[in-house]
C-alpha cells in the first residue's frame, strides 16, 4: 500500500491549515443551532460539530476537535463542503462521502459532488482509518437532526 494514497497533499493541507475551525454562534438569532460530540473510543479522537440553520439553508457548519490528520482534515472538508448549502444538497454530499468511505476503495468519487472530499478515496482502503474520516460526518448528521433538518437514512458499513 502506498502511503501517499492515504496522505494526499489535500488532506495534509486541510490538516495543517484547517478551514473554519472553531465552534461559532449563529449570525442570525432566528436560526436553530445544535451540536453533537462524537468520539472514536479506540483512539480517543473527538470532534464536536455545530449546525446553524433556518430549516432550509445550513448557515454554518462549525467544528472543533482533536485527533489524527484524517479526522481533523475530514472536519475541515465537511465545513467547506456543507456550509451555505441547502439541507437537501448537504445530505446528497453526506451520502456520497459515506458511500465513498464504505466502498473499500472500489468507489470512484464524483469531484463535482465531493470537492476536496475526493482526496479521501485512498482512506477507504485502510479499514482502520475509515472511522477517523467518518467521525465528523457522523457528528454532523446528529447535529443536523437535532437542529431539525432531517438526515437521510444512510447505513454506514465501516
Amino acid at each position, binding site marked *: 500500500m502506498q*502511503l501517499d494514497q492515504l496522505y494526499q497533499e489535500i488532506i495534509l493541507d486541510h490538516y495543517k491549515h484547517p478551514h473554519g475551525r472553531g465552534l461559532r454562534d449563529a449570525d442570525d438569532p432566528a436560526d436553530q443551532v445544535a451540536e453533537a460530540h462524537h468520539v472514536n473510543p*479506540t*483512539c480517543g*479522537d*473527538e470532534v464536536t460539530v455545530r449546525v446553524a440553520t433556518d430549516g432550509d439553508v445550513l448557515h454554518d457548519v462549525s467544528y472543533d476537535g*482533536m*485527533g*489524527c*490528520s484524517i479526522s481533523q482534515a475530514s472536519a475541515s472538508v465537511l465545513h467547506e463542503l456543507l456550509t451555505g448549502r441547502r439541507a437537501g444538497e448537504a445530505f446528497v454530499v453526506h451520502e456520497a462521502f459515506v458511500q465513498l468511505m464504505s466502498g473499500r476503495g472500489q468507489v470512484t468519487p464524483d469531484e463535482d459532488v465531493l470537492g476536496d472530499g475526493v482526496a479521501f478515496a485512498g482512506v477507504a482502503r485502510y479499514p482502520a*482509518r475509515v472511522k477517523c474520516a467518518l467521525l465528523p460526518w457522523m457528528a454532523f448528521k446528529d447535529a443536523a437532526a437535532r437542529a431539525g433538518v432531517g438526515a437521510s437514512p444512510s447505513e454506514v458499513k465501516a
Partner: protein
Amino acid sequence: MTTIAIPSGMPQYDDVPRYDVATVRADFPILDREVNGHRLVYLDSANTSHKPRQVLGVLAEHYARHNANVSRSVHTLGTEATEAYEGARAKVAAFINAPSVDEVVFTKNSTEAINIVAYAFSNASLRPDGDPRFRLGPGDEVVISEMEHHSNIVPWQLLCERTGATLRWFPVTDSGRLDESGLDDLVTERTKIVSLVHMSNILGTVNATARITERVREVGALLLLDCSQSVPHMPMDVVDYDADFIVFTGHKMCGPTGIGVLWGRAELLAAMPPVFGGGSMIETVAMGGSTFAAPPARFEAGTPPIAEAVALGAAVDYLSGIGMRAIQWHEKELTAYALDALATVPGLRIFGPTVPVGRGGTISFALGDVHPHDVGQVLDSLGVQVRVGHHCARPVCTRFGVPATTRASFYLYTTTEEIDALVAGLEQVRKVFG
C-alpha cells in the same frame, strides 16, 4: 572508555544469562514475513506476542491426536486430553512457584480472571454466610491505581456500584512512577482489596510492591497483582511477592489467545463463592440446589479452552528453556538501547520512566504534535508495527494531557536493528508531517 572493575565475589556482568537472539527468532515463523514490502519489524508484543513453532506444533498436535473433552470421560482420548490439560496446570504452577497446583485457575484471559475475583466479592456480599474477607458494603474501600489497564479499573468500578463500596486509587508521578506518598492514608482498615498493576502496559513502569504489600498485611486487606505485562518478561515467584492473587494471560507470553490464569492462595480460593455456574464446577446438583467443587474446578464452569491451556504449557516450557532471567536481561539491554536511541529523535517525548531501571521494554511516546494514528500509519508503511491509541489505559493519557500515545514494546525476539528501524521510521514521520 573507562572500565570499572566489579570486585571479585560480586556478580559480574559476564555472569548474566544470555541466549542467541537469532536462534530464538528462527523459532517464530511470522518473523520471516514482509509487511508492505518491508521486512516485518514487530514492536507490539505488549499487545500480543508471537508464537514459536514449538507452541504452534503442540496446538496442532493436540487437535490432531489427543482431542477429547476433559474431566468427564473414561476413554483413552479423554484421559490423554485430561492429562495434558492438568499437566499444563502443573507447568504454569511451577512457572510462578505456586505452592499448589490447585491454586492455578484457567480463565479466558486476565480480564476474566480479575472479574472472577470482583464477582466473588459481589457474591460473598450477598450471602449471609459469605467469608468476611470478601464481604463488601458502604464504608469499605477498594484501592487501584491511575496506571491500571481498563481491565483492572472497570470490574472494580462495577463492583463498587453493586455493593456501595468506594473506589480509591494511587496517583501517578510526572515521571510515570506510582505515587506511594499517600500510602498510609490510601490503604487503611477500610480497605478490603488492593488491585495493582505489576508492570504498566502503557508507561512500562514496574511497580515495587514490597512497601504496599507490607501495608496491605498491616491493615488486613487482600492484594491482587495484575501481572499481564510482567509474567511474560521476568521471573515471577508468587511466594516471594507475597500476593494473594495474580492474573496473567497466555497470548502475551508466546501462548495462544483464549487462555489466561488466575492464581490465588488456596485458602482464599476455597473461601470464594462460585461466579459462573455450569458443568464441571459442581459437586452435586439437585433441583432444590447444588454444592460446588473445590478450586480450581469451582471457577472453571463448562468445557475449558483445552488445547489453548495445553499450548500455554508448551509456551511455559519454551520460555523456561531459554530462561526468564535471560529474557529479562535481554529486554533490559534493549530498553536501555531504545531509550538512548529515542532521545536522539527531535521533538520526541517519552511518557514513563526515561531510565532503564524499574521499567520494562514497553515505551510510550509522542512525536511533536503528530497524532499517534498518523505516526503508526507511516511506520506501518515501512513494516514497523507499533500500537497507537490509549492502550486501554485512558486515565494515564488524561494524566499526561494527551488523547493517545504511540507505543513500542519488545520481547525476547526483538533486536536492536528493529529499534533502529523504528527510529528511522520516525524520521520519515517527521518528513511527512513536519
